[in-house]
């Protein structure tokens, strides 16, 4: 496939790897923020070809993984509303909340449907005018504009039976919170390519300016990631931390202005709970008051018991880069992709699932 295959060429990888080896003269710890990077790094065995001194750790960049149990419980309770249709992306299905999953709710006869696009949810609402369709909005800035555009479309079509449960989150504020915790010493970030396709490079500048972090916005193919590591190693060596874009074919420095406009039109920032990071000011996206007719939280006032956490699950520590998946005592024994305890083992993008599938 064009724009993919040419970035998987092993021949081209060798000189990049050689150059990284030549440059690496000190320990370097880099965090890949995005779950898709985590999967690529594991799948192509990139850790194995890098110098031992370069340590790649996964961060809080898998949207399903950072969704709190409280939000998952809310999603499950939406499925229990009589007559409701819950539409969701596939990787939410098996994520355990306090005591159930959407998959289990479906098995118990609730109408939970996996969709590829929020527009599919809109279609369901149109096709089932007597029922209420609730779309579970989970995802970062990559996804929020698609859900935003769908809400605007629902408004245009005058739909009264389409609702969004917004658990969307924004990335830069979470990285600030992570660094402020001061638990992990990092030299730089491999920043998410498709979040940045929307927000551009500017929102990350504080990482370099205030925290001295080397930053490269990276594509997802193995050559992209290797080149990003090389660019980061150079920044550290030259002691010139800044935000560079490796993924220039996919990211414009200003992002996607139309998508940003839709996000502002539909959502407003709110404080939100992240698994592992706690409550972070202004990193959630709630539907604006003007669009409250589409807001599932307002339409269905559900009284939920306090969320419970799974005993022994260390997804929170994995998401903060404090431990590798295999260091969790549940990993691969009690917690497996077939029978996951925590979200990092469920999601295809989760660090634990990637480590289980490809070895860590």
């Amino acid at each position, binding site marked *: *496939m064009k724009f993919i295959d040419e970035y998987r060429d092993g021949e081209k990888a*060798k000189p990049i790897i050689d150059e990284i080896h030549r440059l690496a003269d000190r320990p370097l710890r880099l965090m890949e923020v995005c779950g898709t990077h985590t999967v690529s790094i594991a799948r192509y065995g990139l850790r194995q070809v890098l110098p031992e001194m370069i340590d790649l750790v996964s961060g809080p960049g898998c949207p399903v993984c950072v969704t709190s149990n409280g939000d998952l419980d809310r999603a499950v309770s939406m499925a229990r509303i009589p007559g409701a249709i819950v539409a969701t992306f*596939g990787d939410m299905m098996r994520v355990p909340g306090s005591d159930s999953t959407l998959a289990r709710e479906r098995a118990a006869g609730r109408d939970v449907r996996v969709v590829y696009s929020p527009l599919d949810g809109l279609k369901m609402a149109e096709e089932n005018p007597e029922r209420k369709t609730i779309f579970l909005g989970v995802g*970062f800035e990559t996804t929020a*504009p698609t859900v935003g*555009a769908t809400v605007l479309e629902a408004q245009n079509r005058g739909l009264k039976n389409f609702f969004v449960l917004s658990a969307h989150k924004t990335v830069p504020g979470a990285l600030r919170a992570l660094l402020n915790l001061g638990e992990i010493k990092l030299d730089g970030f491999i920043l998410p390519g498709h979040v940045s396709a929307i927000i551009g490079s500017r929102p990350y500048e504080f990482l370099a300016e205030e925290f001295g972090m080397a930053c490269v916005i990276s594509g997802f193919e193995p050559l992209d990631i290797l080149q990003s590591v090389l660019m980061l190693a150079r920044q550290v060596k030259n002691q010139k931390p800044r935000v560079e874009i490796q993924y*220039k074919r996919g990211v414009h420095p200003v992002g996607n202005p139309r998508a940003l406009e839709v996000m502002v039109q539909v959502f407003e920032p709110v404080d939100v709970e992240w698994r592992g990071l706690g409550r972070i000011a202004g990193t959630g996206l709630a539907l604006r008051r003007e669009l409250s007719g589409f807001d599932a939280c307002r339409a269905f006032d559900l009284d939920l018991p306090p969320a419970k956490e799974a005993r022994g699950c260390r997804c929170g520590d994995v998401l903060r880069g404090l431990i590798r998946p295999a260091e969790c005592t549940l990993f691969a024994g009690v917690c497996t992709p077939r029978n996951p305890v925590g979200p990092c083992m469920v999601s295809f993008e989760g660090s634990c699932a990637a480590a289980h599938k490809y070895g860590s």
Partner: protein
Amino acid sequence: MQKISMCVAIPAKIKSIEGTIAEVEVGGITRQVSVQLTPEARKDDYVLVHAGFAIHILDEQEALETMKLFEELGALD
């Protein structure tokens, strides 16, 4: 079940556009996506598709530049 990773976006070529809906081709498969978030997208553009929407028009010139960088590193060996 489809494995949809949440931040994955796939490069796809636009075959035609009608209103806000484009017909795109991904690896030989044709599907419809919304171009509401990329109003400047045109036929034959490659776009990144995520959750049924084109979210970015791929920059072919930049893609070539990146390739050239890889090749220059190779030439140093």
